[in-house]
């Protein structure tokens, strides 16, 4: 296929503005998928994605399209993750395309996330085709949506396509515009090979499979290749294209999108953003934009039963095969025993990992409260990076604590602006800017500590604006803050899994809610159990779990003895599922509840 007949594009859309449905329609119109095997959200591969209606990672697809003038084209649709946690992956997917469909909901208009991704696409020189979707809705205001596209994003929207992916309206126009407006992929097929890895997945049989875009040169099956970031060399065992299933081909050349399997054992050897070149005639330099992904949110994962530690490690290793952004290292907690400190790109990413471990790998685990990375300047001038509260040195040795900040952009209807500003202020936000997009909508910008954001900002924003606000953020580095480490003591023993870092003004309030929650969840023991929150040696909150006073005491004659023994065994089994902290048994829920402390405050 000639290069001028190839179009590579992606879809930029806010969550539930109809991206997956639109992709489904394109597959149907181009007859890429047999109608009998077609199902909704065809490209979303994870069960979890379909369930939550979000796309974390979906497969690219190649469509054959005969244009109105009779010319045959190849259209490669490269999907992009739709959540801020994955902005690096989005940028690599964009780098593999020449154009993008910029989809906005006709009823809701432009959202913050769409702006960020559209800017990213524009920055990389992509041609943007504006699409106003869901025009079938009674509340649709296509003209308003067009105006927002022009005024907020700055694209020329006079010829925006009016579509309804649900009803199949405008799909033919979208396809025509893709072949006419999106530029032909550039690149020199005769130059040394440069292929961009824009995604990679792990396959149990073939190892890592890289999704690639050939930027320059050719990739042939059997060729010796090199990964430029890691220096690893190997043989290209199989190359192919997505039709939508993987179909081997002999050669991929500049402009094409496909996959590569090369017996790569771990996903770290083939990282997203890396460049593949040929060993015989290596490219002089790698393609720009490669970054090693750095986790920003950390939490501890611990097996519920200590013996399951190897099982959890295996599960994490397998998960990492599929998701190179997850980092983990063994850690020991005096409360929870052996476990792992895990790093994630964001809270959604963490949540997904936790759920997949439970669902797909069948491990029962306890997750500690998430936290960000802190920089600690010690009195002797040394700078520490702390991934968890227990990394903090004694208060006496700390000169300054710095925490990561983000610049947050919120799009919000003007009626809610007061509430959102209040929320940002409560979260220690520093006002940055505010401007009217339309008389009814504003763009608010705040500088906010990431730590405050990760707890529950998104949920709170949703509930205070009834879902009408959208947000996006970018990291703006570390800043000094007045933070303290709060320890939680159960029966006088500090439980490291419950320690947390917070602003000094919030310490009492947060200590209160943690202690109250624990008091509710820790069952009565044979003795009184004090639960305390303390900063250093100073106790700021104390509550007691009253001792148990009476058990069920049934009669016990003859056959009752066996029944009684079985009951006691069951009772003991139940306790085994709890974590033993000193003499106190703490149920798993207490650890899980920790994640929800902030949320429940609202109720």
């Amino acid at each position, binding site marked *: 296929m000639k290069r001028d007949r190839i179009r590579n594009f992606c879809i930029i859309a806010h969550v539930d503005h109809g991206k997956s449905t639109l992709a489904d329609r394109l597959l149907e119109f181009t007859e890429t998928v047999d109608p009998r095997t077609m199902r909704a959200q065809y490209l979303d591969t994870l069960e979890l994605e379909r369930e939550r209606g979000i796309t974390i990672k979906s497969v690219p697809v190649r469509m054959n399209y005969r244009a109105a003038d009779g010319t045959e084209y190849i259209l490669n649709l490269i999907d992009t993750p739709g959540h801020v946690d994955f902005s690096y992956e989005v940028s690599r997917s964009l780098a593999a395309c020449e154009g993008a469909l910029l989809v906005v909901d006709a009823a809701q208009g432009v959202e913050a996330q769409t702006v960020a991704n559209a800017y990213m696409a524009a920055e990389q020189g992509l041609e943007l085709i504006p699409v106003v979707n869901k025009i079938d809705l009674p509340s649709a205001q296509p003209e308003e949506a067009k105006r927002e596209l022009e005024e907020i994003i700055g694209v020329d929207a006079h010829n925006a396509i009016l579509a309804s992916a649900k009803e199949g309206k405008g799909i033919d126009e979208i396809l025509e515009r893709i072949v006419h407006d999106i530029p032909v992929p550039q690149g020199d097929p005769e130059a040394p090979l440069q292929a961009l890895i824009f995604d990679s997945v792990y396959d149990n049989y073939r190892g890592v499979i890289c999704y690639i875009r050939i930027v320059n040169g050719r990739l042939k099956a059997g060729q010796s290749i090199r990964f430029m970031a890691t220096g690893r060399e190997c043989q290209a065992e199989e190359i192919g294209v997505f039709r939508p299933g993987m179909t081997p081909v002999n050669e991929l050349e500049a402009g094409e999108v496909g996959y590569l399997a090369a017996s790569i054992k771990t996903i770290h050897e083939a990282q997203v953003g890396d460049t593949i070149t040929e060993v015989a005639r290596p490219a002089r330099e790698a393609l720009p934009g490669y970054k090693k992904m750095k986790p920003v949110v950390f939490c501890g994962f611990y097996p519920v039963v200590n013996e399951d530690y190897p099982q959890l490690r295996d599960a994490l290793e397998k998960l990492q095969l599929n998701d190179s952004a997850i980092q983990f290292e063994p850690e020991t907690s005096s409360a929870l025993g052996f476990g792992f400190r895990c790093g994630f790109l964001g809270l959604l990413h963490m949540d997904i990992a936790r759920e997949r471990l439970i669902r797909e790998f069948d491990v029962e685990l306890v997750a500690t409260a998430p936290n960000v990375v802190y920089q600690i300047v010690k009195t002797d001038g040394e700078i520490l990076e702390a991934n968890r509260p227990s990394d903090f040195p004694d208060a006496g040795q700390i000169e300054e604590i710095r925490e990561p900040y983000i610049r947050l952009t919120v799009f919000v209807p003007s009626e809610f602006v007061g509430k959102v500003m209040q929320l940002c202020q409560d979260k220690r936000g520093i006002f940055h800017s505010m401007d009217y997009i339309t008389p009814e909508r504003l763009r608010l910008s705040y500088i906010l500590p990431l730590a405050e954001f990760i707890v529950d900002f998104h949920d709170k924003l949703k509930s205070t604006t009834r879902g009408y606000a959208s947000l996006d953020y970018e990291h703006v580095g570390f800043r000094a803050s007045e933070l303290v480490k709060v320890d939680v003591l159960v029966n006088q023993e500090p439980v490291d899994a419950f320690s947390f870092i917070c602003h000094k003004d919030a310490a009492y309030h947060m200590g209160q809610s943690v202690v109250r929650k624990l008091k509710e969840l820790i069952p009565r023991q044979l003795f009184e159990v004090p639960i305390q929150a303390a900063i250093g040696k100073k106790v700021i909150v104390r509550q007691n779990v009253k001792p148990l006073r009476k058990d*069920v*005491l*049934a009669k*016990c*004659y*003859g*056959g009752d003895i066996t029944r009684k023994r079985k*009951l*006691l065994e069951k009772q003991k089994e139940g306790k085994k599922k709890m974590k033993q902290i000193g003499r106190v048994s703490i149920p798993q829920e207490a650890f899980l509840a920790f994640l929800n402390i902030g949320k429940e405050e609202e109720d």
Partner: protein
Amino acid sequence: METLYIGGGTPTFLNAADWESLIEILENGLSFSKGMEVSVEANPDSLNEDHLRLWKTWRVNRVSLGIQSFSPGILRWLGRLHDEKQAIEALERCAECGFASSGDLIFGIPGQNLRLWHSDLRTLCGSVNHLSIYQLTAEPGTPLAGKRVASQSEAYPLYRFAQWYLNRRGFLQYEVASFARNESWCRHNLSYWKQTNVLGLGPSAWGYLDGLRYRNAAPLMRYLRQEGLRWEWTESLLQEDRAREAAILALRTRWGIRWKTFRRRFGGEISRKLGEALSELSPDLFVKRNGRISLSDKGFRLGNSIWERLV
């Protein structure tokens, strides 16, 4: 043979003629010794003069009455067939016949306050030297299933009051649910808690023989059809489980565990393990005296949490 217990709920269901043939069977099949404890269970609604006459002339010396309560409201709630008057009459008649009698009381019924509970205890105390108190549980498959019963914290004051009140009336709590005056313990029940051998006769009866526990077939016809041993279920305990069970059972009683005897029976290692498990708990749950460890009043109230450590 040291004790014989004719129980299973309502042996008074049998009429005089049935009782005569039962007595004949037992006389032919068992060898009775002097001073043996022979107990019969009776319900106030079905106990009659024929029963009392037959028992008196035979070997019965102890009658255990299923009183439950003297309060009409509670008896009605429980669906019992007797009333307060029948309960008192049954107690009086047993005393007149010279039987050592015992009564059962139930606590933990919704609406049963301390006043009602005290009144039940006081009435029963006046006519027996032995009594048992049971907390009501709504077991699945029974008429009470699904009904609301008192929670542990509601039942706590009632149980605690019984411990205090019965002690004042001269009763000694010799087991979690059993109280006796003048050392009139139920020797038969003690044999369960001492893990001594028990021969179970009749459908659904349990027995124990040197570490083997068994249950006879429950349906009468199946029981009758079977030849020889009529066991439907057995369990055989390994030495260590036997030791653990022995310790738990012993701790049900006020005599508790005598370590010297326990070590001789089960060996030093398991004795040490169990001793350590108990020593982790608060000392006020126990009474330690003369090489024995037993539960204190508080310990009796928290039995499950303590025994759990020994499983």
